[in-house]
């Protein structure tokens, strides 16, 4: 009998007594609230985004300026006042944040995880783990502030053409911000690798280096990959650090060209904050464009989370 069946059998008799019913309903309501939140989010974002796009605005019965889906998804200029709503300009900047921060966070995060799980003594571990948690706990405004006050001036002598607002500082601080996420989830995955596998490696004469890189890392690969995706979706959603450090000019840049990182740009989240500063309520296409961007962002992070779940499930090694 599974644990659940056993519990059910033992509690069946009293299941419908008033205190049981009351408590169960209360807890159910709490759980239902989380579903309600998602439904609320989806309804709100879809509803407002529907008013933004031309094809759906007619359905919802909204008049006024709208943008077409094609223009939104393929346009490379984002200029709200002149009616240009090409989200690609914002998406490429977000992509830049993702790439830049992952270059920093992924190697350092996995390195930290390997060190903590394989090499560090328990005492060192008990010091470093809280340290990482504190790193994760520092607010993003503070990171943004650090980027623009300390990091950009420190980098300017070394990197030619680095303006006051640039993507490089933003990527650096976002990278540092997500290291703890990568490290802790990867480390959990590595700790789950059974000791027998490591011992088998040692028994065959492998060095610690060979065991760590050849046995532990491949065995926990699904967890590491999961941590990558989660950390990247956090990087994409990062708002204040990039708003403060990267400026407010929406540009269509090539994320794979290192030169673009010295320029100022505006990722999706920063664009939302800027738009809201000028245009919170009321109708108007600018207000709706905030929801259109929000909708895009939500879809992207949702897809990334689902992919991470699927990968983790598919490739997870059950020990």
């Amino acid at each position: 009998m599974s644990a659940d069946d056993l519990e059910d059998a033992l509690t069946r008799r009293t299941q419908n007594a008033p205190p049981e019913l009351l408590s169960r309903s209360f807890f159910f309501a709490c759980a239902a609230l989380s579903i309600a939140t998602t439904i609320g989010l989806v309804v709100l974002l879809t509803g407002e985004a529907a008013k933004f796009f031309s094809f759906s605005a007619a359905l919802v019965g909204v008049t006024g300026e709208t943008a077409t889906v094609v223009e939104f998804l393929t346009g490379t200029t984002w200029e709200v006042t002149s009616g240009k709503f090409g989200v690609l300009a914002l998406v490429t900047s977000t992509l830049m944040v993702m790439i830049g921060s992952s270059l920093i966070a992924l190697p350092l995060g996995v390195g930290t995880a390997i060190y903590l799980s394989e090499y560090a003594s328990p005492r060192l571990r008990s010091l470093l783990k809280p340290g990482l948690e504190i790193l994760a706990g520092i607010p993003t405004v503070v990171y943004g502030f650090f980027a623009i006050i300390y990091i950009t001036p420190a980098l300017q002598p070394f990197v030619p053409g680095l303006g006051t607002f640039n993507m490089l500082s933003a990527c650096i601080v976002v990278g540092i911000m997500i290291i703890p996420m990568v490290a802790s989830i990867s480390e959990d995955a590595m700790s789950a690798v059974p000791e027998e596998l490591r011992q088998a490696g040692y028994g065959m004469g492998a060095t610690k280096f060979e065991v760590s890189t050849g046995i532990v890392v491949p065995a926990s690969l699904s967890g590491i990959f999961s941590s990558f995706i989660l950390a990247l979706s956090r990087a994409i959603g990062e708002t204040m650090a990039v708003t403060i450090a990267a400026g407010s000019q929406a540009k269509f840049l090539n994320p794979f060209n290192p030169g673009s990182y010295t320029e100022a740009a505006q990722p999706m989240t920063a664009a939302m904050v800027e738009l809201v500063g000028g245009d919170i309520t009321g109708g108007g296409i600018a207000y709706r464009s905030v929801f259109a961007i929000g909708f895009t962002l939500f879809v992207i992070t949702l897809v990334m989370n689902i992919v991470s779940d699927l990968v983790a499930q598919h490739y997870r090694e059950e020990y």
Partner: protein
Amino acid sequence: MDGNDRERVRTRRQVLAGAGALGATALAGCSRNTYPDNDASTGLSGTVDIAGSSTVFPIATAFAEIFGKNHKDVGFNLQSTGSGGGFANHFCPGRTDFNNASRPIREPEQNQCAANGVEPVELVVATDALTVIVNDNADWIDRVTVEELATIWSEEESPETWNEVNDDWPDEDIELFGPSDASGTYDYFIEAILHSGDEKLSHRQDYSGTEQDRTILQGVEGSEFAMGYLGYAYYSENTDVVRGVPVDDGDGEPVEPSLANARSGEYSPLTRPLFTYPKLSALAEEHVAEFARFWIENTTNGDIIADEIGYVPLDQETKQEQMETLEAAIVEAQQ
């Protein structure tokens, strides 16, 4: 029975001791109850919600601070949203009591307000010298004409490098920083510069637009070939890192941005009035009306407006006009 008796005595003693302690505490610590004691406060109370232009924001905040010190029960909520943003999203929907603006209210906004039953009262509070700034080290530029400004900032021309505009200027990429389109400063710049010629040009969009003037300063400070424009107050606090460019309005004489030149009218066309729009229904409330009176009363106060903040105070005549408008509005509201 002995133990029980002793226990009972001990317990009785404890009860007496406890009661005595309680009584003593009550006597020492309780007194006549005057709750709620602070309510009948002499003076005004209430909240004042202000939103709108980032240019006028320092003025509103300064006066809110001073007024609040003298009237502790009046609370202020201030937001810097840009003139247009303030009208569209806070004032006309009826959420705020004052909207600050660095340009006059426009017809669509008037209509929106009317549709919501909000009546704005136009009050002038100061004069600004909109300043064009460049980096302190930008030796290549020492003056600019209105025509050149129009060319630089227009959508139609959108020059990429400086020497496309003026041969004497270097062949370097143009970097521009300025207010975003929710800002009254943006609207005023279009009116004064881009619409000044025969053709009504539109404002180019490939610049760094923001509601936060500090961002404009930082941007220009960071690059030798950058240009920006913003309100004089923000420029005057940072003359050590950016430079205001003298503007030639067509008569061949470039005029430096300064309070004196703005006051005399020589610094044209970038001298502009700054406004605040209280809503009529809010003036029915005593604390809002008093604050409005206080503000207009101090529009000639050079110490605060010119020295501390950096705009041109009104002259006595204009202030008198504003006071009359305000008083009439208050009378109408409080009927």
